């Protein structure tokens, strides 16, 4: 084809050249016929490829002198040479100019083609409008985007593709842009522009605008990109983020699941979602914000199975079940009527599975449609996202619940444990303080939280030891044990045996110290009492055994001294003998008291009125009370039950305590005697406002031979006897004393016969 064209052109040009040559031959040389060769040169350039055009021109150049040679002579030789040279020059200049022009045309054509190609094949829609905003260019991408053919669009107003509410603003925008010198600008920086498709659908787009002025006319070009997908993806991502935030902030599960449903429903108009939770083999409503209440109630508690609608089957099969047409699907056989009532035609349900436990179904996510429908690619993506989110939410909530149950359980164990449990942080501050601690210390957790134990619970003398034990825990992290006192809120001391251990953090350093303690105050007291009782029993046996052996020798010493005393007149000897007698008498007194204790007769209990015993006792000591300026105060609860005790021994007890109290108040004071029922027994208290005793003394006051009185003034057995008698009665005696403030003895005695433990005498 191309060949033919070239040949034809070559033939034409050749013929033209030949014609000119013939003409030249006929015209005298003086006339510049050679100039005519510029015509074939020009045509060659236009019609022939470059090489052929040059060859044609070369041929012309040869023909010019040749024609001159054969032409009839005319004019001067000078003229002849001049016009031939000029002719050659004209031919070549013509060729050069023609070439140049052709090149320029070619360049332009290429450029236009390229631009056209870009415009046609661009992914983005390109629309050009003139100053009147009539469309002059509408590329295929624009056709697809707006669902409008170019032929229909060209010449139309741009408004046609803009939602009505934006039209004025848009026109203003373009007009305003036209007034600026800016050539290109992004439109709608916030990405809020919308387009209008031929079917009326609005869609989000991104646009840039440029302007050029051609021949004094403004031409605006807009490049548009449909960002529907991107916006949807962004919306989904934002929705997903919002739901994750709801989970993190601990919103209730139904709210989160509802939000998932709403987000999915927004993606697909006309669709309704539900999330059901699987508990055992039954499905319960998780969330279905737009399903009718009646429908929700009807399927709540649905037992899963191999053909139980979409959800029941999906949960049973552990795989998605897409029922695209309910009226014809066998899975819905039993529920068709229900679906019809509420107008559902399609229901796609996907099991929500556990990410932790393979094959464990947590629930189902279902999409309901009112028309028969099959899922598309996009739907599968949405379903996957919804089930993932719901799965995370459900598992997270279940995890939280399990954690809370665990925490509550541990807290309950801690609270109900009999042991004291204190947890301290690295600074030694209390972070946990269980009920046993509250009971032992008298402080409430709220009062001690954040405080250091050594700031208020310890006795000063034990502070260092406790601190050392804790220091050891921090530094070595090894469990240890120790024993110390706690000072109760009311000042009472409790003996506590501790077993300490540490909790390490992830870095392996000590984070908390856990001290588990047992309040052994009572145990210690009992041990002490037992020890004392045993010691007293031994002492009694010993004393009885010794009595006879000692009695006779002492009698001999005393008797001999008396014998000699009567037979001497020497004063120093008399004095010495008197001393011997006095000292033997002292021993005798001690022995007698000891024996009184050791050989107590069995108690003879009878119902007795302690009030009378007190009155009798006060009668006996009346003189002494006056002498020591001691006031007496008695208080008796009413009605006062009788106690079951030995009246003689009770008198002995009371007398002992009252005499001690008087002796403790050499400067006078107040003696308070009180009787009140307490628990199953009776409490007798004898309190003085005397000198009191330090703790070390208190621990020993019931020990035999322990006395604070001057040598010879007391035997140290009075309280031992009291203690023994009370114990024989199955009672208990306690002493509280504050140095400088006074001492209180309290005795608990049984009221009823059942409470007495028999009056076994100590071995004598």
């Amino acid at each position, binding site marked *: 084809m191309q060949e033919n064209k070239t040949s034809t052109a070559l033939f034409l040009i050749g013929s033209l050249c030949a014609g000119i040559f013939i003409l030249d031959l006929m015209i005298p040389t003086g006339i510049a016929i050679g100039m005519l060769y510029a015509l074939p040169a020009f045509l060659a350039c236009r019609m022939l490829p470059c090489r052929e055009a040059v060859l044609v021109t070369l041929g012309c150049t040869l023909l010019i002198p040749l024609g001159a040679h054969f032409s009839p002579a005319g004019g001067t030789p000078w003229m002849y040479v001049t016009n031939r040279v000029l002719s050659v020059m004209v031919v070549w200049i013509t060729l050069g100019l023609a070439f140049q022009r052709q090149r320029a045309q070619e360049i332009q054509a290429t450029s236009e083609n390229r631009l056209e190609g870009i415009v046609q094949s661009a992914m983005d829609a390109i629309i050009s409008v003139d100053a009147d905003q009539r469309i002059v260019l509408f590329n295929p991408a624009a056709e697809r985007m707006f669902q409008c053919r170019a032929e229909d669009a060209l010449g139309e107003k741009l408004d046609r593709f803009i939602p009505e509410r934006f039209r004025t603003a848009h026109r203003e925008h373009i007009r305003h842009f036209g007034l600026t010198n800016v050539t290109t600008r992004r439109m709608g920086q916030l990405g809020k522009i919308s387009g209008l498709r031929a079917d009326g659908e609005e869609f989000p787009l991104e646009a840039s605008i440029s302007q050029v002025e051609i021949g004094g006319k403004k031409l605006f070009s807009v490049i548009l990109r449909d960002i529907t997908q991107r916006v949807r993806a962004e919306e989904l991502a934002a929705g997903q983020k919002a739901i994750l935030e709801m989970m993190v902030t601990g919103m209730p599960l139904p709210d989160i699941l509802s939000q998932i449903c709403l987000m999915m429903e927004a993606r697909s108009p006309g669709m309704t979602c539900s999330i059901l939770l699987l508990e055992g083999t039954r499905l319960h409503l998780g969330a279905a914000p737009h399903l009718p209440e009646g429908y929700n109630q009807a399927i709540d508690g649905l037992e899963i199975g191999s053909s139980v609608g979409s959800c029941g089957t999906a949960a049973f099969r552990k795989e998605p079940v897409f029922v695209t047409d309910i009226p014809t699907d066998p899975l819905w056989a039993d529920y068709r009527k229900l679906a019809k009532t509420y107008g559902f035609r399609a229901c796609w349900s996907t099991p929500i599975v556990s990410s932790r436990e393979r094959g464990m179904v947590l629930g189902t996510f279902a999409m309901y449609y009112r028309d028969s429908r099959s899922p598309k690619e996009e739907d599968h993506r949405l379903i996957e996202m919804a089930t993932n989110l719901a799965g995370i939410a459900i598992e997270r909530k279940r995890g939280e619940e399990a954690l809370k149950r665990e925490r509550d359980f541990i807290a309950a164990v801690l609270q109900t444990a009999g042991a004291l449990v204190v947890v301290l942080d690295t600074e030694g501050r209390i972070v946990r303080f269980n009920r046993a601690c509250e009971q032992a210390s008298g402080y409430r957790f709220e009062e001690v939280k954040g405080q250091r134990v050594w700031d208020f619970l310890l006795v000063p003398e034990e502070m260092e030891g406790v601190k050392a034990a804790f220091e050891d825990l921090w530094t070595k992290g090894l469990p240890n044990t120790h024993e110390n006192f706690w000072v109760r809120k009311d000042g009472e001391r409790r003996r506590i045996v501790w077993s300490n251990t540490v909790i390490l953090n992830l870095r392996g350093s000590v984070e908390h110290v856990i001290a588990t303690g047992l309040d052994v105050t009572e145990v210690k007291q009992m041990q002490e009492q037992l020890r004392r009782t045993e010691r007293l029993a031994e002492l009694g046996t010993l004393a009885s055994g010794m*009595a*006879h*052996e*000692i*009695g*006779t*020798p*002492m*009698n*001999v*010493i*005393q*008797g*001999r001294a*008396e*014998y000699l005393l009567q037979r001497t007149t020497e004063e120093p000897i008399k004095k010495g003998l008197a001393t011997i007698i006095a000292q*033997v008498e002292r021993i*005798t007194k001690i*022995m*007698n008291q000891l*024996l009184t204790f050791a*050989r107590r*007769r069995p108690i003879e209990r009878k119902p007795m009125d302690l009030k009378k015993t007190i009155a009798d006792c006060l009668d006996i000591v009346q003189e002494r009370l006056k002498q020591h300026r001691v006031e007496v105060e008695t208080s008796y609860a009413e009605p006062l039950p009788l106690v079951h005790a030995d009246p003689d021994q009770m008198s002995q007890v009371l007398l002992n305590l009252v005499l001690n109290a008087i002796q403790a108040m050499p400067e006078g004071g107040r003696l308070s005697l009180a009787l009140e029922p307490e628990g199953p027994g009776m409490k007798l208290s004898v309190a003085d406002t005397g000198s009191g005793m330090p703790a070390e003394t208190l621990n020993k006051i019931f020990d035999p031979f322990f006395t604070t009185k001057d040598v010879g003034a007391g035997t140290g057995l009075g309280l031992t006897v009291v203690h023994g008698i009370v114990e024989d009665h199955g009672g208990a005696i306690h002493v509280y004393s504050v140095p400088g403030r006074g001492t209180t003895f309290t005795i608990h005695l049984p009221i009823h016969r059942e409470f007495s433990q028999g009056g076994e005498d100590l071995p*004598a």
Partner: protein
Amino acid sequence: MDPNQTVILLVEDDSEMRSLLCDELWDLGCRIVEARDGDEALQRISDARPDVIVTDLRMPAGGLDYVARLRTFAPNSPIILMTAFGDATTKAAALKGGVVAYFDKPVRLADLKTAIRRVLDGSHLGNGQAAQNSEET
């Protein structure tokens, strides 16, 4: 040996104690018959009927049984009992068994002597003894 002399039977296993009592009671002007234990005491009763028996309780062949035997063999001899740190039960039993005086050792010798004198004076004695005393005096 003056058959009319008042006889005191002193029963005590401890020789020092016995010696002390002999020395102390000497000035009562009585004949003191000593015995070292219960058995010896019963022998001495058969030798000479004592006007008063001063006896220890806890010694070989002693105890409350021994006191009872003394009462049987010498129903008319008043008994003064001494015992080292005796207890109330013993004291009650002894007094019930016919003992006229009871002393816990260590006993003040002055008190013991007073008691013996009273017994010998018959002011606190049973009828038999008083009659016997009056016959002998």
